[in-house]
């Protein structure tokens, strides 16, 4: 599959909307996540308190980021972990690949981490002499398909069972000929089992970094992180510096929020804290442990007044509840991070010039902020990015012209009312039974769906009428 670029957002969206089954495929997952989350929140009356606490944990850590980073480094070193720092994704990938090469690695297993995708690690391995094996089932599917992830929690949600059947039959050594999902999972289990046990290096991300112990924490339902990390002789963690929390006790409220918000479950099956290499007498575990702490735009977010975004714990609730995401899916964003959180992150990881169109793909309905487990004001952040984009003149000239023309009209109430009255008449010409199937200048909307016909009177006309009726009636 061809990888979309963020700068081609409009074309990507056009392509996504033309794919008729995409909406159904997306909603199969997001609607379930949506209702299961609602159920989990309803069963947890203290949810609002937990949210406030979670936000406080993140804000506190961000406020004292340098202190906690130094603490983390000191304690990780004391555990025997080798600590690396990377300003950019490129640097981080290079560090990881060089460690693998020092150990003459041939096979590398990796448990799902969006940071790994962000820093281009998957790509870097594919261009190397080493074999990369994704062990999360969804990442395994998209690796076989050659797709980028389309969701941060369910990266393969755009692939149907039929796709998976084809892929597994093509790539698995001992594939199943059953079409049942349970047998497909069994086929992946068989295929990955020997790969887990014969890997040279295990790479993981980290959901939390504990400053007071230098631990990294992985959270999975499949248990693939532990199977990735334990057998090989070397474990490499890649983590963004915003993953820090002061201690395990501070990670606990975030764990309560994370799973409920992501899948609607109360907790994930596996939460593991990794504390360096194996101890001298340990029965198993890696002999060497590295952690690569990655900035890649995060300190810039701090400097740009976007520190609220650094609270993000990557649950995906914002995209599951986003009307835009549900129509266009993850690939259209052209970034590892789609949906509302992605539209805020991508301009910082890439550049606003390249990823400004995503910030406009928002109806400002506020659902993302409502469901965010750490109260990130996503609409506010998107609005501020829009403002920056406007100031820096990143908008196309035609857009600038229309917006400026609109602002001129809107500043003159008489003219505005006249124009909207004309608009109502104009739209009426094209409406049939309350719907508009075609109208000049609205093809972007009507290509894929009808436009609802306006009321026969403008807002101001209705308002005046209502006011008059009220004063008459009173």
């Amino acid at each position, binding site marked *: 599959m061809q990888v979309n670029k963020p700068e081609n957002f409009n074309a990507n969206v056009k392509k996504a909307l033309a794919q008729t089954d995409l909406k159904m495929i997306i909603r199969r997952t997001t609607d379930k996540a949506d209702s299961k989350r609602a159920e989990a929140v309803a069963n947890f009356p203290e949810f609002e308190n937990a949210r*406030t606490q979670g936000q406080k944990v993140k804000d506190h850590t961000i406020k004292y*980021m340098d*202190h906690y*980073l130094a603490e983390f480094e000191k304690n990780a070193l004391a555990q025997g972990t080798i600590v690396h720092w990377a300003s950019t994704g490129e640097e981080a990938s290079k560090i990881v690949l060089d460690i693998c090469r020092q150990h003459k690695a041939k096979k590398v297993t990796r448990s799902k981490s969006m940071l790994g995708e962000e820093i281009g690690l998957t790509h870097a391995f594919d261009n190397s002499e080493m074999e990369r094996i994704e062990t999360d089932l969804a990442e395994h599917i998209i690796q076989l398909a050659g797709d980028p992830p389309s969701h941060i929690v369910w990266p393969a949600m755009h692939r149907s069972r039929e796709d998976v059947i084809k892929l597994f039959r093509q790539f698995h050594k001992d594939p199943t000929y059953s079409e049942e999902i349970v047998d497909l999972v069994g086929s992946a289990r068989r295929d990955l089992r020997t790969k887990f046990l014969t890997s040279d290096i295990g790479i993981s991300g980290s959901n939390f970094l504990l400053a007071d112990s230098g631990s990294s924490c992985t959270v999975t339902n499949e248990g693939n992180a532990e199977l990735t990390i334990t057998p090989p002789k070397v474990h490499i963690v890649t983590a963004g510096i915003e993953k820090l929390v002061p*201690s395990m006790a501070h990670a606990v409220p975030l764990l309560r929020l994370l799973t409920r918000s992501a899948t609607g479950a109360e907790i994930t099956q596996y*939460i593991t804290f990794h504390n360096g290499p194996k101890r001298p007498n340990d029965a198993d*575990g890696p002999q060497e442990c590295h952690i690569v702490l990655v900035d890649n735009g995060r300190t810039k977010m701090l*400097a740009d007044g976007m520190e609220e975004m650094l609270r993000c714990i990557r649950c995906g609730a914002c995209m599951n509840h986003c009307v835009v995401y549900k129509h266009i899916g993850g690939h259209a964003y052209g970034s590892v991070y789609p949906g509302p959180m992605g539209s805020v992150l991508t301009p910082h990881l890439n550049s606003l010039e390249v990823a400004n169109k995503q910030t406009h793909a928002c109806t400002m309905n506020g659902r993302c902020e409502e469901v965010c487990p750490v109260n990130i004001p996503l609409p506010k952040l998107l609005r501020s990015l829009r403002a920056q984009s406007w100031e820096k003149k990143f908008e196309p000239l035609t857009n600038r012209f229309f917006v400026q023309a609109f602002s001129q009209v809107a500043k003159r109430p008489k003219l505005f009312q006249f124009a909207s009255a004309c608009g109502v008449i104009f739209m009426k010409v094209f409406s049939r039974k309350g719907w508009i199937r075609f109208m000049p200048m609205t093809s972007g909307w009507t290509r894929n769906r009808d436009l609802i016909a306006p009321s026969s009177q403008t807002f101001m006309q209705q308002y005046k009428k209502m006011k008059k009726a009220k004063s008459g009636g009173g």
Partner: protein
Amino acid sequence: MSDKISNKQISDLSRARIFKAIKAAAPTVTADISKIEAEALEILGMSESARPRLLSSDATEALMLRIEAGLVIGTTCEKIATLDALPASVKQFFNKHSLPHALKVQELAHLQSLNWDGITIDVDVKEDKTVGLCWAEYGVAETGSFVVHSSADMPILLNFLPLYLVAVIAKSKVLHYMDDYALIANEIAKKAETPRNMCLISGVSGTTDIEGVLVQGAHGPEILHIIIVEDR
């Protein structure tokens, strides 16, 4: 040495750059450590009103009720009075799932010395479809979890490779909340005895990655049975 910049130099440069950028950004305040610690502690004070209520005030009962209510995926549980009753419980587990009487018992003296007559206790868990039996350090009622720590006697893979897993928890080690476990972990850390891995396991290996359908036994256990020993 090549004239190219080494990874150590890249890392050192990046480290300096990251700290400088954080210092330059407005939100960072160079406060004294006791102030930071006090603020961090204050946030933890909120936990009591920010966590779910348990199904019982008794931790063991709460843990069992949670599992019996089907809230812990793929998991069943039972209580036995003494550890001597463990082999009989394991036999029942074999019979329930029509399994051959063979498993891997964790190499701990108090487990190995039980009367395992009629049961093979040293199967190779690298083979798929095996049964593992492990001794958990703790239980957590809030999440229906058992906790294992890596050690000379505890291979972490014992909890991940078998298709069927039996976890034994001492009743006295069942905690109410994850916060209680975090406190214990903190105590262990103070003694500089933190194990390489601390795993909170709440149910079996599962996935919803294909069309959102839940399948158990993705990579690890498909069935988990928790046995609580009352006199321990």
